[in-house]
């Protein structure tokens, strides 16, 4: 009786190992499913989703105009103080003082890509870009100014 159980145990054990090995053997002989991506060789065909959060950028149109009013909604929404907005007072042609954006300072090294600034922006002036290769030689290069030089606010945006 003891011998019978002993042999049954061994039979079951060997069978379970063979079942596993069959699966291993299948993958050994059928290596069609290649899921490894050969980055960076596949850079040309790399397909990132549209919503991928790479970094915050400011949208500029062809006239070098943006939609940022300098309202600091994004600065208040940011949990890490990633965004700092420096405003200035423009004098409009009719002599009125108007608050406008001077510098949109963005600290990429502090950003956690939580998307809260994009949601908070009332004029959709900023968006998340698909770029993800952010390595630089010096940390100070990670502090960026998002508005282009000499850019100004698009007409009609309050």
């Amino acid at each position, binding site marked *: 009786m003891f011998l019978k159980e002993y042999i049954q145990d061994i039979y079951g*054990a060997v069978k*379970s190992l063979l079942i*596993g090995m069959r*699966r291993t053997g299948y993958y050994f002989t059928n290596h069609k499913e290649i899921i490894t991506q050969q980055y960076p060789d596949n850079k040309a065909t790399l397909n990132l989703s549209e*919503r991928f959060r790479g970094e915050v950028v400011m949208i500029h149109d062809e006239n070098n105009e943006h939609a940022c009013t300098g309202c600091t909604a994004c600065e208040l929404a940011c*949990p890490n103080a990633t965004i700092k907005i420096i405003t200035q007072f423009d004098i409009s042609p009719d002599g009125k003082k108007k608050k406008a954006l001077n510098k949109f300072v963005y600290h990429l090294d502090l950003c956690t*890509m939580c998307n*809260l600034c994009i949601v908070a922006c009332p004029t959709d002036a900023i968006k998340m870009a698909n770029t993800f290769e952010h390595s630089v030689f010096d940390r100070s290069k990670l502090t960026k100014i998002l508005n282009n030089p000499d850019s100004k606010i698009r007409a009609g945006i309050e």
Partner: protein
Amino acid sequence: MYKETDILKESSVEGNLIINIGPQHPSTHGVLHLVVTLNGETIKKVEPHLGYIHRSIEKMCESLSYRQFIYVTSKMDYLSSHINNHGCAMCVEKGLQIEVPPRAQVIRVLMDELTRLSSHQLWWGAMAMDIGALTPFFHAFREREMITSIFEETCGTRLTMNYMVPGGVMADVNTNFQKSVKDFIIHFKNKINEYDELLTGNIIFQNRTKGVGFISKENAISFGCSGPTARGSGVSCDIRKLYPYEVYNQLDFDEILEPGGDCFARYLVRMKEMKQSISIIEQLIDNIPDGDFQAKTKAVLKLPKGEFYSSVESARGEFGVYIVSEGGTTPYRIKFRSPGFSNLSALDFMSREGKIGDLIAIMGSLDLVIPDIDR
């Protein structure tokens, strides 16, 4: 409380040897430090030392607004970040008494179940790797990659999503979402049988896990275990069944209970839970109702004065959020009830009088995520 003199006291017992496991990734789960008292190869005592990845998230949350603090919680239990965010969003909604639109509820449940699947897949690979089988890790990551791609399509990120916001979800699902999820379900239904072939039936794996790390039902309750760890001892503790939230009360799924109480029982609970998650996703994926994905909320959220608690079933157990509000824009105090901390407290009990090799199997079966324990 641990004192230096404790080590001297125990080491003076003849034959006792104290070794430190960690704090550098003892079994690829995170920065946990275990002080193990051994007699030969028999474990006399295991003392986990925490705090190596403590980031004071609870204190940090006190200075963040009710919209901002949610993103921090995805960095606690990074494998079930959607579920953490969900718990926090639900607690804020409870305070503000916001009704979440049905579409957002269904999307939330779908995301939760996908997160649970991806977390259990990683656990499956990691547990097998702890025990010494390397192949399952690659199999698990192959399937997990599909889920992270689905998250990337809809949420924009792969691990720390910050997708659940008070009132619903941050954005509507991607147009590809339904198709990708269906593709994944078809793919994964075939592959989960492979998981069983490779590991569940394997005699070496069974010998390493059966009868190892036993914890009885009563002890599991008294240690405060939850999730698959407790259900492996036959404790009914699924928040989705006991205190249903969102649309879970309309769904047809089983709470998995295994009476075994050992590592293999906990393993089986998670394997069967994966099949339940697939069934939940199948029930919902074609029935996402139309409508808003987010309820209308004020720009600045202010919770009324009082205390609010809500809990969700994360991949590791009960995740609870407790907010004390003084009526301002930031919480006065936030406490997170993380499942990993309570489950870890049972590790000493489980591994006593076991062998040193079993310790790693027990840790694997607990599915520890250290940032969740330390916070």
